[in-house]
């Protein structure tokens, strides 16, 4: 199945993209997406414990994904 991965702020800058499609086995979790992103070149410099969101809602790492889900990596937020 394919999911849509969204990157922001430091993650988008360091990894050089803000969005890409990722092919995963069925049963894959949000945490699997994070694992993939954190294995990309340069990722070791990034905040290592970001939150995750699936389809615009915060989600735990063990959340099982479905085809077409939008999985966002949310580094420490700084609004206000």
């Amino acid at each position, binding site marked *: 199945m394919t999911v849509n991965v969204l990157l922001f702020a430091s993650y988008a800058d360091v990894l050089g993209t803000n969005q890409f499609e990722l092919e995963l086995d069925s049963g894959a979790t949000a945490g699997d997406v994070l694992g993939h992103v954190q294995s990309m070149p340069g990722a070791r410099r990034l*905040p290592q*414990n970001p939150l995750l969101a699936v389809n615009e809602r915060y989600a735990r790492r063990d959340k099982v994904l479905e085809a077409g889900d939008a999985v*966002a990596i949310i580094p420490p*937020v700084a*609004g*206000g």
Partner: protein
Amino acid sequence: MRSALVDRPIDLNALVAEVARTANGATLLFVGTVRDVNNGRLITGMDYTAYASMAERELADIVNEAAVKFETNDIVVEHRIGTLALGDASVAIAVAHPHRAPAYDASRYVIEQLKQRVPIWKLEHYTDGTREWVGAHTRARGSGSRQAGLDDQAIVAPPTEMRR
């Protein structure tokens, strides 16, 4: 109730007018502005970016929660996105209530939750020409899993449990 991300200057007077009603004895306006120093480094400006669709949803959720918790529908929040100069308003929260105590509580709830939950980031521009995402080096500074900008104890802490 209303909440929005905006890419233009926030009209503070308009927010106050939007919540003012004769049933309310207290009207509060909180304004967050771009400060000239952070962690000892001099700042010249700031870029705010957001996961816009999620940020607007989270903001709306927070305003709804505050409305239920503090019993007023007269709450309006705007957060500005884009490049801001020193002193510019980045966020404004207008709350009105028949009584002042719940008005203060509702205003505080909205800003504390916003800082913790709403997916907005800021890139600080320093006087030496460098730029840095706020919170991007929290581990290096030894502040562990705390979210950037959250200087006070949180009212509730949903993100922490999400980290498991």
